[in-house]
């Protein structure tokens, strides 16, 4: 067994990420990776009567996070953090959406039944006192207490304007409303964006007060406000609709950020690559080609277009070989390598990190 070389060192990792945001480099690119745990994970036992109870049980969720963080070797620039989480529709709960919980994710019930109901939506201020936001707040508090500075508490998953609209009305209805009442949808989308910005500011202040840097489920580091703008909804619409209606909401949502990495999800989202690359102030791109559409090396042309536009990249590689292929093709500047398949042991992981070093002259 080799000594624990390449263990996570906050200051070193932070410096690598700060350089990466600028498409620059300290030594090698940041690398996120995971190692299979040497012993079976002893996850806390759930005695909850329902999935909802389990998802909303703060102590249980923080217990699970701690078990994972304490069991796994933390190497490279893998940010050891906990994501307070109730699923991807947290933002929609600001407008009364109730969540339905599954084993691995949650969904929200629609609260805008008719097109005319957008007026009511626009007149409704976001509700930060609903059960889901109170739970997220409690998760942040409890995690910070129990972690005692050993691990980070991450910014929860916030979806932006048109994903909020899709959450409360259903994506098909939003599509139809865009055709029938586009100005009404525009007003609703900007209202949702302002709520998103308020949500981000509140959470950012909350986490900063607890001494946390910016990180989230996309585990970069930054000392100021940073986040991952996204829009799943825009996969459904034309370039013209995206430009006219979606772009202003994304720009509004990026306004408070010092650093941003766009979550471009799925082959259909590539349709909007050029529009995304023109977003003012965007630093980086996370291209999620999705299951069945890999490996990352297949998407070199997309990566080249992003780099040519001055954007840094998070490469979501299937495995180490895939990551090294991309690194050899593109060079180390502007890359953050994330290896999605866990390494068999720490020796293999450290060997990989050594190789990345060698390939980063």
């Amino acid at each position, binding site marked *: 067994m080799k000594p624990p070389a390449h263990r996570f060192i906050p200051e070193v990792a932070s410096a690598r990420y700060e350089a990466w945001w600028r498409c620059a480099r300290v030594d090698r690119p940041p690398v996120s990776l995971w190692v299979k745990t040497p012993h079976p994970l002893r996850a806390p036992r759930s005695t909850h009567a329902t999935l909802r109870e389990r998802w909303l049980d703060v102590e249980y969720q923080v217990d699970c996070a701690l078990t994972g963080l304490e069991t796994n070797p933390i190497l490279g620039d893998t940010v050891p953090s906990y994501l307070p989480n109730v699923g991807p529709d947290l933002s929609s709960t600001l407008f009364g959406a109730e969540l*339905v919980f*599954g*084993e*691995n*994710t949650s*969904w929200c019930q629609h609260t805008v039944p008719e097109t005319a109901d957008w007026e009511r939506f626009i007149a409704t201020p976001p509700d930060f006192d609903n059960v889901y936001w109170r739970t997220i707040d409690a998760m942040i508090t409890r995690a910070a207490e129990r972690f005692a500075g050993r691990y980070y508490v991450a910014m929860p998953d916030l979806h932006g304007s048109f994903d909020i609209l899709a959450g409360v009305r259903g*994506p*098909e209805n939003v*599509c*139809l409303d*865009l*055709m029938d009442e586009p100005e009404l949808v525009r007003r609703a989308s900007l209202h949702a964006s302002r709520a998103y910005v308020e949500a981000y500011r509140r959470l950012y202040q909350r986490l900063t007060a607890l001494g946390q840097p910016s990180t989230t489920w996309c585990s970069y580091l930054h000392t100021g406000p940073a986040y991952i703008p996204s829009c799943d909804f825009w996969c*459904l*619409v*034309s370039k013209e*609709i995206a430009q006219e209606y979606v772009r202003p909401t994304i720009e509004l949502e990026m306004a408070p950020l010092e650093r941003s990495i766009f979550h471009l999800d*799925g082959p259909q989202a590539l*349709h909007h690559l050029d529009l995304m690359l023109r977003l003012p102030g965007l630093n980086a791109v996370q291209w999620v080609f*999705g*299951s*069945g*559409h890999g490996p990352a090396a297949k998407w070199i042309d997309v990566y080249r277009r992003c780099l040519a536009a001055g954007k840094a990249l998070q490469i979501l590689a299937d495995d180490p070989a895939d990551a090294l292929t991309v690194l050899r093709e593109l060079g180390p500047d502007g890359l953050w390598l994330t290896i999605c398949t866990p390494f068999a042991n720490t020796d293999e992981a450290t060997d990989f990190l050594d190789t990345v070093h060698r390939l980063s002259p």
Partner: protein
Amino acid sequence: MPHLTELTAAVAAGKRTDTVRLTQELLAAGVAPQTIVETGLVPGMAIVGDKFKRNEIFVPEMLVAARAMKEALKILEPLLAIAGIKPKYTALIGTVQGDLHDIGKNLISMMWRGANFAVVDLGTNVSPDKYLAAAVEHKANIVGLSALLTTTMPAMKETVRILKAANLPDMKIMIGGAPITQAFADEIGADGYAADAGTAVDIARKLVGAAA
């Protein structure tokens, strides 16, 4: 009397009011409801499917076209029922167990209806047993399985296994969804894979032997 091609153009452009008006005018002029469906409406949705495949239109434009056709069918279906005319093929569709996403399923459902299939929508989170029972009940020619989550792909595999084991005559299985590929379809023994809602019509027609 308006020409059927005007109706086709109105559907393809998603012009609901024009589609309804033209349908009523064609009926008043004595055009048979079945002719209006097969020669006016279905070609309109075929144009929509082709444009969708070529990324010339997107989901909102497809939805308004399907809505226009649906309005016309509200007028025509009672007349077709009286005449005892039913679509030749029946398709079931649902999102597999554990998955509550429905937009992909709904788009394909619309396009199949637009191609004059009778469509039974089983909804989301559909168990293998529910698929099988519905396939038997409706004598389905096509069973469509949708999944958006990689975590529900095993449920798709299990559903295909159970449907195949039933050996139902004339039933073909189609799958689709964001994480689904032709390779996965081959691996689990599905008869067809559709990458998008436009292609889903071509594949379904091919599987039932109705390809143009």
